[in-house]
């Protein structure tokens, strides 16, 4: 597994990041709002394919950052697509197809780039998250591959989000391999400094002096084909994959530590990782 070594918040062209936000909608709104706000301030155009609720939350976050979404829309710098409707347009016989994806999303992306040819484009998409939530991980990965294919033709950065809890059973190698292979970065989970500490403490408490030896095995596991990720997420994946008898109790304890840390510190957001 790739250990995260460089900054995850460099949203340059060809960067395709993924955030796993679990059920923390507030965190998602803050992080995506900041990503979009940074783009607007840099002169980038924005494409947001989100549910109505999320789109509203992102607009509120932009306002908190002193930016006005309506003004950006009127200026053609911000384009909203309804995630559910857009997803249905990308599907044929229950699966996304490249032709439909390109007709639906590719066309919009190329239009935005043509209008603002000398500035960047930041895209945010949660069609994949909808597919994941519906239990169709295979279709989500197909859609990610279509995004990457489009990025091969048109220059833009992309931010995806999935309602996956890193402490939950879904967050494991077999389930996430396709997602990790189709992104460049996995954004650190909310309280990443806390998450790293929480994981470290939980491993020490459960495994005692054996924890250090395992850290040797964990730190050497770089997977070139995967998205870069922080040490904390890499550790969770390793434990899930390699020490299943212990992983549940270590992760339950780490979750407790994180929640306690959250009560005393509201640190978070992708800029602070």
């Amino acid at each position, binding site marked *: 597994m790739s250990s995260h070594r460089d900054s995850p918040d460099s949203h340059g062209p060809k960067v395709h990041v993924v955030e796993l936000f679990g059920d923390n909608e507030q965190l998602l709104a803050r992080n995506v709002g900041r990503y979009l706000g940074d783009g607007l301030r840099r002169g980038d155009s924005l494409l947001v394919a989100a549910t109505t609720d999320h789109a509203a939350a992102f607009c509120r976050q932009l306002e908190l950052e002193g930016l006005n979404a309506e003004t950006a829309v009127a200026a053609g710098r911000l384009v909203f697509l309804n995630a559910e409707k857009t997803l249905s347009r990308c599907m044929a016989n229950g699966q996304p197809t490249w032709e439909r994806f390109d007709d639906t999303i590719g066309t919009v992306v190329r239009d935005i780039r043509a209008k603002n040819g000398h500035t960047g484009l930041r895209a945010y998409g949660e069609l994949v998250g909808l597919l994941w939530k519906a239990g169709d991980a295979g279709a989500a990965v197909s859609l990610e591959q279509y995004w990457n294919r489009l990025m091969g033709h048109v220059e833009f950065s992309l931010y995806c989000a999935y309602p996956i809890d890193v402490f939950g059973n879904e967050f494991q190698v077999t389930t996430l391999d396709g997602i990790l292979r189709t992104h460049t970065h996995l954004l650190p989970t909310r309280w990443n400094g806390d998450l790293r500490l929480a994981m470290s403490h939980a491993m020490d408490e459960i495994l005692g002096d054996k924890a250090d030896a395992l850290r*040797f095995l964990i730190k050497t596991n770089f997977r070139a084909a995967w998205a870069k990720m922080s040490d904390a997420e890499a550790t969770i994946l390793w434990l899930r994959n390699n*020490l299943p008898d212990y992983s549940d109790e270590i992760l339950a304890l780490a979750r407790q530590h994180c929640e306690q840390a959250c009560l005393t510190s509201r640190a978070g957001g992708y800029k602070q990782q």
Partner: protein
Amino acid sequence: MKGRYTVLVVEQNGDYLGRILVAFVKASPRVCVSIAVDEADARRYLVAEGLHADDDEFPLPQLVVLDLDNESASGLDLLAWLKRNPQLARIPVLVLAVPGCPKIEQAFSLGANSWLPKTDDDKAILEMAQAVGVYAMLLQSHPEKAGASSLSAIGRPAACNCVNSSESSGPSRGL
């Protein structure tokens, strides 16, 4: 064998194998290292065939350390075979390879559990042996789950089900 853990090391290079064995003796004295000198030897060991037919002397390993650093693709073949076999697939396989070796990614795709960077530094080999020994111990000895999911409860596959006919002339056992 109570309180001891078996690691099967698949290593063709005699010199390097010697260094690994010395490291295990120093760093993880409770680990019994079993040796296979090539893919075919490893298969025979895992199905308890031929010279490896004695379960007490050659128990099913807690994990396999597989050196990928050779000319042939046999290490990857062994890994694929092992992960296809329902009775052996749960045995973690740690692949040993130099950083940047393209076989590492192939090994992960085939189900390898971890990668161990291959090195000439004896101190690093010692560290690796210690880590592997601890990992083997943890795999075998969860205080509440021992027996429920430990590898010793898996049993071994019949030789005729998982090796080439030329290698499967011996009797199968341990089912």
